[in-house]
């Protein structure tokens, strides 16, 4: 029978086509860039399961660790090791296991810069059984480069809906444990002005370089 063969050929074409198009659909589409915590929203939905937003998300920051030196800051994410390392020149500031994109929603490789930092945001996306609706995603750092514009919604952020750091788990973003995300958020550029919940990178206050490999 040639029909099953034909079907599998079409399936391959569909997968190839999806592969070509996958970066068109990023981690999440942003609605507001305010970055404020929504204290009323304490429940999210992730792949068909309800998750409660833990209190650690709402914790007010106490210890802001700014850069210790004037050396250039950079963030390296290794997709194969599932690790994130933050460097200040040659000094390691932070190393943490992360969860990057699953096979069908890969985290893009390359060199990026943070273009906006948000204290918290709502993320909604996915489809079918992969649908997710997560309020108060903490410590979000969206990045972009020439090939992948910021509105696609790829970023680094804390994750409260799973604890599998070290294995791919996300829809394209880099998921961090919340304490590590908090540390990175206050360390990375652009520097957050006192009392603000979001900041965009500017020429005077540029975003930290991110290398994903």
């Amino acid at each position, binding site marked *: *029978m040639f*029909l*099953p063969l*034909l*079907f599998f050929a*079409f*399936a391959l*074409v*569909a*997968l190839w*086509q*999806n592969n070509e*198009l*996958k970066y*068109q*659909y990023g981690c999440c*589409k942003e609605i507001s860039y305010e970055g404020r915590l929504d204290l009323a929203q304490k429940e999210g*939905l992730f*792949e*068909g399961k309800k998750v409660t937003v833990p209190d650690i998300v709402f914790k007010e920051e106490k210890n802001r660790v700014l850069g210790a030196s004037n050396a250039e800051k950079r963030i390296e994410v290794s997709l194969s090791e599932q690790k994130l390392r933050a460097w200040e020149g040659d000094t390691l500031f932070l190393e943490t296991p992360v969860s990057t994109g699953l096979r*069908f929603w890969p985290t893009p490789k390359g060199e990026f810069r943070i273009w906006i930092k948000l204290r918290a945001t709502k993320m909604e996306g996915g*489809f*079918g*059984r*992969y*649908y997710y609706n997560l309020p108060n995603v903490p410590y979000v750092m969206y990045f972009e480069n020439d090939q992948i514009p910021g509105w696609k919604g790829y970023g680094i952020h804390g994750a409260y809906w799973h604890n599998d750091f070290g294995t791919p788990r996300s829809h394209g973003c880099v998921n961090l444990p919340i304490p590590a995300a908090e540390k990175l958020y206050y360390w990375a550029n652009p520097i957050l002005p006192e009392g603000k919940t979001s900041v965009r990178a500017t020429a005077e206050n540029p975003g930290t370089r991110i290398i994903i490999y």
Partner: protein
Amino acid sequence: MEIISLRLSSLSFITFLASFLIWLMYLGLFFWFYLGRIPKRNLFFVLVSSLMAWVLSQMFKDLLPTVRPFLLNGVNPLTLTTPLDNSFPSGHTASAFGLATAIFLIDKKLGIFYFFLASLVGIGRILSRVHFPVDILGGATLGIFAALLLEVLFLKGKGLKRK
């Protein structure tokens, strides 16, 4: 978790093709059954072919995470409901072609008419932005395969009345 939202405001010809035509095809089947053009013992075969095509398509949908076109271009689909499962293959086209193939095995003329309607369903699904052309091709192949498989396996080509 299936999220489906009903949209009644934007009904159009494309919506008719994409969302309603398939149900009219089932209605038509019962109409021709009532007129005696589809023999009683074959009605079950026709319905099961269509159902099996649909079940197979849902199975492959779960296996192959493919994004639907309206999610990529960010424009709302024109279908009655918004499907948020995976794209490949098209379940509507699979069941429509399963139906058409099964009818074709019983009644050639009516079958060709049903193939025409099934193609319209497929075209409607593309125009309403819920499927890529390759999803339609995959769905059509799956539908034809399901009906032929059922005929060969369970009826061995004997149980159907041909004209």
